[in-house]
């Protein structure tokens, strides 16, 4: 193990050298954007463009031409969200108001300052947290918010840097997240996360972008007040048409905290299991799921998030200005681009290493801004519908069955981590599937939601979209056990609920499932719709903490969008770990939201 430790340090100079060698090897490929033709090779040799955005030539999330984006390997040409095509039609999110609630934004950044909503920023970490003046990052390392904002709202065609997905949108920066750079102090005890959290859902904004979330090493309890706040936003926002809440699914596909590994699911963060949010997964430059992207049945769509920016492309975006702040401040490898040693980024105002589902969320926010520009009368549910209908199915290669992520770690490492058997499923059990097709014809995936967002098709559909969806209806019921859960078996515990005379077209389905079990992290939950389709709402053997007092799971699934509500719904609980731990399924609460046919 010591060898692996040393190997990390040995590899740093190798990585740096490879980046040096890589300069000048960027392949020549055309990237047409905004009426101007760029050439990657020209960017690498420092050609200055006028009237355009030079770094956009490397922005594969805008148009993927197989760029390296200053990493070592190229992405796959054509694997993008057709954002450049929407730009060419003239959609730029003009004057759409976006709240970016994050770690604050460098409001003086030359590629951002022109798009800010002056006077509408919020700094929850000022002396008076609700007396808002600005939202500059609290610490020079708090670069995340500046990077997120650049992805959605960096100015376009201004002769510098990069271009946002919605380059004419307007943003307000909320300084909401605080990285742990500073020590604790007495003032910390006099703060209220809840006040900040509820406040940042409110206001006169079209879109709220949340590129953050709780660590998915445990099942977090639902905050009913937060759910009420979101409901208020979709009811009252945009003059009753509803604000859009976009949030990243998480980066915990395989993750660890100080003492153990876990396998995240976006339903573990109950805040993401709101029917009023659009949860976004991440793709890499090859058009398939990014290595870190947390899966979950509450994901709606996916978009570019990138990889590490060293070996494979990440996202190019704005950074806190100057070489002593932002990504260059937090730099550990002193990579050429971020650190200002590359002529395309001499002032260290940009980074090529922004990644994560944090990057995917603002891509979707930007696409929504263009949809709203195309058709301002759309409701929040119309927009979700358009995103689902127009999303592209990606990654369709066989096999469709997916393994437990522990298999990526290898058996030796699993042994070292004391989770030797975590990836071993009962014979015949399928851990997850890449894609399922529901009875309404929608293809759905826990990795991708309805697929990769398609900006071009979405704006085109919006322009011809004439009738809003009918008012939302809901139905809720509960049934009780107990039903025995068998240890390590394909035999499942099941509770059915029959829905009759509701006649709804389903939009979302929420479940609450209570178990009495000594090891609930072993359990997988499948929801079976009346059509017989299965949504894996909790993936088992996640090694997660579970400190809920009555061991209940809460989850939302989008997998049954468009199906009919009526018939028998079944929750099935499987125990996937052979450890002698058994228990009972106690309660099944089903809530369906939908509309009249």
């Amino acid at each position, binding site marked *: 193990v010591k060898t*692996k430790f040393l190997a*990390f340090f040995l*590899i740093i100079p190798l990585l740096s050298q490879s980046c040096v060698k890589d300069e000048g090897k960027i392949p020549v490929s055309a990237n047409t954007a905004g009426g101007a033709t760029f050439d990657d090779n020209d960017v690498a040799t420092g050609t200055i463009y006028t009237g355009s955005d030079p770094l956009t030539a490397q922005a594969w999330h805008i148009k993927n031409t197989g760029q390296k984006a200053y990493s070592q390997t190229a992405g796959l040409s054509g694997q993008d969200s057709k954002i450049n095509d929407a730009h060419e039609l003239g959609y730029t999110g003009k004057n759409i108001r976006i709240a970016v609630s*994050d770690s604050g934004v460098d409001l003086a950044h030359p590629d951002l300052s022109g798009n800010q909503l002056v006077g509408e920023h919020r700094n929850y970490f000022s002396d008076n*947290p609700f007396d808002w003046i600005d939202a500059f990052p609290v610490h020079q390392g708090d670069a*995340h918010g500046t990077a997120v904002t650049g992805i959605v709202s960096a100015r376009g065609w201004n002769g510098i840097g990069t271009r946002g997905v919605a380059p004419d949108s307007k943003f307000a920066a909320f300084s909401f997240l605080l*990285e*742990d750079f500073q*020590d*604790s*102090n*007495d003032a910390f*005890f*006099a*703060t*209220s*996360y*809840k*006040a900040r959290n509820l406040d940042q859902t409110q206001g006169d904004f079209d879109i709220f972008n949340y590129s*953050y*979330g*709780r*660590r998915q090493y*445990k099942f977090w309890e639902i905050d009913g*007040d937060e759910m009420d*706040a979101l409901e208020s936003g979709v009811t009252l926002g945009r003059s009753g048409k509803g604000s859009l809440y976009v949030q990243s699914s998480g980066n915990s596909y*395989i993750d660890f905290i*100080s*003492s*153990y590994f*876990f396998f995240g699911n976006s339903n573990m963060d109950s805040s993401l299991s709101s029917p009023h949010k659009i949860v976004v997964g991440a793709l890499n430059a090859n058009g398939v799921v990014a*290595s870190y992207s947390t899966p979950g049945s509450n994901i709606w769509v996916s978009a570019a998030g990138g*990889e*590490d*920016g*060293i*070996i494979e492309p990440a996202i190019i975006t704005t950074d806190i200005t100057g070489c002593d702040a932002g990504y260059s401040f*937090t730099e550990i490898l002193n990579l050429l681009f971020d650190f200002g040693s590359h002529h395309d980024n001499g002032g260290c105002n940009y980074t090529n290493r922004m990644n*994560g589902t944090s990057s995917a*969320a603002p891509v979707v926010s930007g696409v929504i801004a263009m949809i709203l520009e195309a058709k301002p009368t759309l409701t929040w549910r119309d927009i979700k519908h358009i995103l689902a209908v127009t999303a592209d199915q990606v*990654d369709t290669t066989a096999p469709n*069955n997916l*393994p437990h992520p522990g*298999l*990526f*770690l290898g058996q030796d490492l699993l042994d070292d*981590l004391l989770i*030797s058997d975590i990836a*071993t499923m009962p*014979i*015949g*059990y399928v851990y997850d599937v890449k894609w399922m097709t529901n009875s309404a014809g929608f293809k759905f995936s826990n990795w991708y939601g309805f697929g990769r967002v398609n900006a071009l098709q979405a704006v085109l559909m919006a322009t011809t979209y004439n009738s809003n969806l009918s008012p939302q209806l809901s139905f809720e019921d509960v049934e009780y056990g107990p039903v025995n859960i068998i240890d390590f078996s394909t035999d499942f515990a099941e509770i059915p609920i029959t829905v009759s005379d509701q006649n709804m077209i389903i939009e979302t389905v929420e479940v609450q499932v209570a178990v009495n079990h*000594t*090891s609930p992290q072993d359990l997988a939950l499948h929801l079976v719709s009346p059509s017989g389709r299965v949504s894996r709402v909790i993936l088992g053997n996640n090694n*997660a*903490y*579970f*400190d809920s*007092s009555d061991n209940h799971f809460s989850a939302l699934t989008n997998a049954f969008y468009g199906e009919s509500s009526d018939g028998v719904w079944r929750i099935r609980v499987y125990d996937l770990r052979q*450890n002698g731990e058994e228990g009972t399924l106690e309660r099944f609460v089903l809530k369906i939201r939908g509309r009249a046919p």
Partner: protein
Amino acid sequence: VKKHYIFFSLLGLAVIPILLFKSTSEEEKVTHSKWQRPPLDRQNILLDYSPNKSNKKRMSEKKTRKPAALAPQKSFASKFEPHPDFKLKGYTIAKDLGVMPKKRYNSGLGELIFDDGKNIFYRRREKDPSTLVAFSAGRNKFFPLSTILNLKGIDQEERQQLKNQGFEEYHYIPALKIMFIKTAQGELEKTYHELGSKGLQVQLEVLDERPRPH
């Protein structure tokens, strides 16, 4: 091969300090924003995968309720006396513990019970006005309580009445009718009971882990 080499190198970086130093601190030392994992190739492994594949090696010992962790943890549940006046879902409020920023703590204040890396949780002496402490049994961790109290169902009229009665408003969200009341360290319990005695829905807030950048 190179990808795997780098990945295992990073894993080594993460795991070795834990194995070597057996730190008892609960502070999370790694965040996504600073530690970026080299790409896993989810696609390649699928080629070799079949759902019926089984591993011969299995752990013989039974798992407990908690997830498998590298470092065994001593439970702190016996280190404090539960506060009889406060019930909070998912937490137990400690009657005899307090919390202090790490840089201000000294052993004269009381026995150190738990160090989260930023704050010290210690056995407080009588009349020590430090902030109250919540304990999560599932995670075996302590968290400070905020000195801000949450009041639900407060309309504008009630809000004004409370302000007139001398309660200091921290924030108010009209759409949700939630009012946040400022108190001070040492006054939290008194104000909590005072508001509760008026029949108001008053709630404590645990300063649990905040969301992080994704």
